[in-house]
């Protein structure tokens, strides 16, 4: 885990919709932690697959992506996909990282 590096992107600061039954778990540093769904109901992507920009028909030109460049390799993560997964566990060469939303 200590080799994990993170691209923390928090435009929305949301988990799921407001109508979820947010249940208080514990309080940490004075603030409660809420759980709205059981573990892994929002499935992280562990084996991400990628297509070329020309083949990326599921994201429109004006839609947002998270972009990273690591060791000269550029990757884009459409935020509409991240809405349903929140986390992509990824690697470029020996560098492991997580894209989170």
């Amino acid at each position, binding site marked *: 885990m200590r080799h*994990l590096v993170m691209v*923390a992107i928090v435009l*929305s*600061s949301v988990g799921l919709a407001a109508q979820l039954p947010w249940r208080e778990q514990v309080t*940490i540093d004075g603030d409660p932690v809420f759980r709205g769904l059981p573990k892994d109901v929002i499935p992280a992507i562990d084996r991400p697959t990628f297509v070329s920009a020309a083949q990326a028909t*599921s994201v429109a*030109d004006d839609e947002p*992506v998270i*972009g990273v460049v690591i060791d000269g390799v550029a990757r884009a993560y459409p935020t509409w996909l991240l*809405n349903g997964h929140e986390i992509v566990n990824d690697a470029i060469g020996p560098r492991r990282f997580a894209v989170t939303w």
Partner: protein
Amino acid sequence: MLWRENLVMYDRQTDSWWSQADGKAIRGAKRGTQLVQLPSDLMRFDEWRALHPGTTVLSTGERPGPDRYRTYHDGRAIGVTGRTRSAGALDAKARVLGFRLGDRAFAVSMETLVTPRVVQADAGGRPVVVVLGPDRQTARVFLAREHRFAVGTPSSPRLIMQDASTLTFWDAFAGTAVTGALAGSQLEPVPAHLSYWFSWHSFFPDATIIGGRAR
């Protein structure tokens, strides 16, 4: 899970809980461990592709549906658990570019960056330059070192800035010197991410606002 209205993750090795906004473990065996943040951008796909024509794109085979957070982004709601908190100096849902240098946190008001496009600031004793992205929705932060930057002559489709001492022209968003004495030089990026102000403020209540304006 949510903590301070922001994502909490777990790791499968130790089941520790990790807070997304600051990349820190808040519970479990890894409590107190800090992840390293990498530079990244949140921007329009066409602008990203123009900057990086060789980019690949995450694809899962899923078909896009309506943006389930559209109402949240467009509305006044602060977070989703129903707990709101005072956000201090800026509007709660003002968009800021948050970054940390040393043990201090900073928030660049995106609203006040749009017109000047290039803003130089002192970030706790370290000069930084903040550059607006081509889609005007995102920005990058670089260590400015000894340079004093101003927006240069717009002879390029890309935003150009010029440093006062050598008059070198820089591709501002790339942080790369393109013509002049320093051509080829690269400014060091500072990892940053876009956030709503209330979220950044809830994690970093002492954050210094760059370019803030009274509500």
